């Protein structure tokens, strides 16, 4: 089975080269798919990618944090192959962009190896990762969309003859049609399952986690209760937060939303002072990683059905956290979804960041405060200068449904099963 992962690169920008950087990114953004220096559409392993300029700011104690340039991508397969492919198609672009950053070789001809080692040196480990359509490669997502479109058209064209038949007969006719087409030869086989090694690691870890949980349960309980009490004491000390929504910032952010079907979200902010909050946050993100792998692996983050990829990365020596996601719909809808559907987990993750609406016992209040949460999120949100999606018109729900449609082509079914399958179309 295909494995997806996320790459995060963080560079320090040079003040004197900032205009060049902005110009370079604008140039990419104008024709993100097929520009000459970094044509993302040619990079077959990338689901999503973005370049984000992060302005200089200060940490909680008021010490300066320098301006950064952030690159993120969600990709298929191994990291080395992904970087290799990016440099294969986009070396000139990477050189143009990275030239504006600190520490990049200052000479005319920079070799591929030098770029590669510069990139390697600036890779940041991610802490939490959520994947909506687990296991599916860009290729598979596009192929299955194509397949479903063809089946839908087939149903339209042959409605008169098909409508009088039983669900199983209709399903078999569709199967015959698909398998008669050479372009769908790939669909004769079901999607790759986990290899033996992958399955061993996947279930092995689950087994290990469950064992640890059972053995350590009493100890863990004491730890959780202690942590919650410590947290509550901190919560009580914190001042109430500001509800003021910055209108002009929202309008600026919305100008970067050029599509209604899919968008990007980046939010960055300082983590509350003290080691307790940071440790709590690290444990929470560790858990999200596990939970998203074993529980939320069917397209939904709890009941939120619109997130393709989301990740959390610590920056600047664990002083800041950045949340990066690619999702369906607009940011307005995205933020209201958080409050309407899953305020408790949102609070549990983000309450460790500065200015988050006051929580009570970790999960109460907090993100339930609609005005406060939206004002906070907009305050922390930063625009992406360059954003790429490999499939702008396919939602997570579409991806999941398309695979279901494909999977319905295999094996034998009864009328009831066939009807359920036809309901997907």
């Amino acid at each position: 089975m295909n494995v997806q992962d996320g790459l995060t690169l963080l560079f320090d920008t040079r003040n004197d080269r900032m205009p060049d950087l902005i110009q370079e990114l604008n140039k990419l953004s104008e024709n993100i798919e097929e520009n000459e220096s970094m044509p993302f559409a040619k990079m077959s392993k990338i689901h999503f990618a973005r370049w984000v300029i992060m302005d200089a700011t200060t940490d909680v104690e008021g010490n300066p944090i320098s301006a950064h340039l952030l690159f993120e991508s969600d990709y298929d397969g191994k990291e080395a192959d992904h970087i290799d492919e990016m440099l294969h198609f986009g070396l000139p672009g990477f050189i143009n962009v990275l030239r504006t950053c600190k520490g990049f070789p200052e000479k005319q001809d920079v070799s591929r190896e030098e770029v590669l080692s510069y990139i390697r040196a600036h890779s940041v480990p991610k802490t939490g990762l959520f994947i909506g359509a687990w296991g599916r490669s860009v290729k598979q997502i596009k192929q299955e969309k194509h397949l479903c479109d063809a089946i839908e058209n087939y149903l339209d064209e042959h409605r008169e003859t098909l409508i009088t038949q039983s669900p199983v007969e209709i399903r078999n006719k569709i199967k015959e049609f698909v398998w008669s087409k050479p372009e769908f030869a790939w669909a004769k086989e079901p999607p790759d399952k986990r290899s033996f090694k992958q399955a061993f690691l996947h279930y092995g870890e689950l087994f290990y986690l469950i064992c640890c949980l059972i053995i350590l349960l009493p100890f863990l309980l004491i730890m959780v209760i202690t942590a919650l009490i410590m947290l509550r004491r901190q919560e009580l000390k914190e001042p109430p937060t500001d509800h003021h929504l910055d209108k002009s910032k929202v309008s600026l952010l919305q100008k970067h939303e050029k599509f209604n079907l899919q968008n990007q979200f980046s939010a960055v902010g300082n983590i509350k002072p003290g080691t307790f909050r940071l440790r709590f946050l690290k444990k929470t993100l560790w858990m999200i990683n596990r939970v998203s792998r074993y529980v939320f692996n069917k397209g939904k983050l709890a009941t939120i059905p619109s997130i393709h990829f989301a990740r959390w990365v610590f920056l600047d020596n664990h002083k800041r956290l950045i949340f990066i996601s690619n999702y369906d719909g607009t940011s307005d809808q995205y933020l209201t979804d958080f409050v309407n559907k899953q305020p408790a987990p949102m609070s549990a993750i983000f309450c460790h960041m500065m200015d988050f609406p006051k929580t009570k016992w970790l999960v109460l209040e907090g993100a339930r405060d609609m005005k406060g949460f939206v004002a906070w999120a907009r305050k922390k949100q930063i625009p992406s200068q360059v954003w790429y999606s490999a499939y702008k018109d396919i939602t997570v729900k579409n991806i999941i449904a398309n695979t279901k449609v494909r999977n319905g082509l295999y094996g034998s079914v009864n009328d009831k099963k066939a009807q359920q399958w036809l309901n997907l179309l």
Partner: protein
Amino acid sequence: MQTLEKKEIQGLILRGYSNLPNAVYLLLQVDDHIQAKNWLKSISNEVTPGDVKPGAKAMNIAFTMAGMRKLALSENALNTFSGEFEEGMSTKHKQLMFGDYGKSDPENWKWGGPYCPEVHIMLMLYTDTNERLEAFCEEISAGIKQAGLIILEKIDTCRPDNEKEHFGFKDGISQPFLEELSEKGPADDPIAVGEFILGYKNEYGQFTDSPSILPEEDKNNIFPVQPETELKDFGANGSYLVFRQLGQNVKEFWNFAYENSKDKNGNYIHAEAVKLASKMVGRWPSGTSLVDSPEKDDPAMCNKNDFLYHKQDPHGLGCPYGAHVRRNHPRDCLEGIPKEASFITRKHRLLRRGRSFGPTVVASMSPEDILTAIDDLPDGSRGLNFICFNADLARQFEFIQNIWINNPKFESLTDELDPLVANPYGRGNDNQTNSFSIQERPFRKRIQNIPMFVHTMGGAYFFMPSISAIRYLAS
């Protein structure tokens, strides 16, 4: 339950004036602000408040951002209006959200567009008889002209029989239930009044952001203090008013319904055409829901509005997933989680107060008659003056328009917009036409090449202030 200051709230917010079937809307432009203020002062006592039901006539007034600026409301106060209100309805961003392209492009609007004269004030007049409306309008217009205001548009309205809109379907059935306005006493599922009127708690138990002025700007101490700030609540008892004038192409709608429901020999089948049209709307012409009566119209149930989609029709076999009314108010049916869906849909409701305009194609409004009638009026001669109130434009009107109506991915759908009111041209796809799936057994029927039946002819966001706030603007 919160106590409403009905004396302060303008009448139209609290009631639809069904006893006053004649109405006209005047769009005005202010030239000289001192004269305009004097005029506003002179009419302010005539503005109908919400505490008494008007018998013969009513008048309400609303302002655009530009209008309040023209009336010299301080910049500081203007800044406290919501960002959506400030941006207006005709920017590139809003165009993308609402799908206003092609014929609906703001550049082609009759009023409210980027090339149209700036609208400042909307005066809305309602009367019981047509004669009284003419006299009322004449009297008011004379005052307006005397004060140097310009009447940009006089938008007529009509109230066809049986409360039907031009396509021939009963309209305005499902309105949010406000306990505070009910004479019948408490019901089990009221919507918080703060969803529609500022200064009251909304569905989140919070006060929606409301425009304010500084304490020193309120010398006569007429506004309450905002609960969360020290500022004076200029917006209290007011509401944001959305106005979109929508042209309806009635002949094209019914032609399409008949053409796409012909039998094998190519003959029109009246019952099938009505059924197809009703599937697109989500209700039968009488107003009866397809959930309650999936096979044929049953006028006996036309006022029944307590149905639930997930509970009664989870697979869309009665009312299709993409039908107009199901998209606009999905009730308990989103993502297959009824409890969460009911919780969410309550946050996206509108208080509708619009009226149709233009002559009906035929007085009977029956599809058969519409099909055979000769209609030589140009496009845009009839339609709906869509008017609604909400406290949060982004979360209510814009959300519904963008995330539900104009979303090809609504629910489990893959590529279709609202079949009735959405503009197929726009929203990320280059399709000139729309498609629409009707869930059936053994498999769905997909109607293709649906043209645009409804187009936007004009529109703007207004603010309908409280009675005190009108006086403040006039001072």
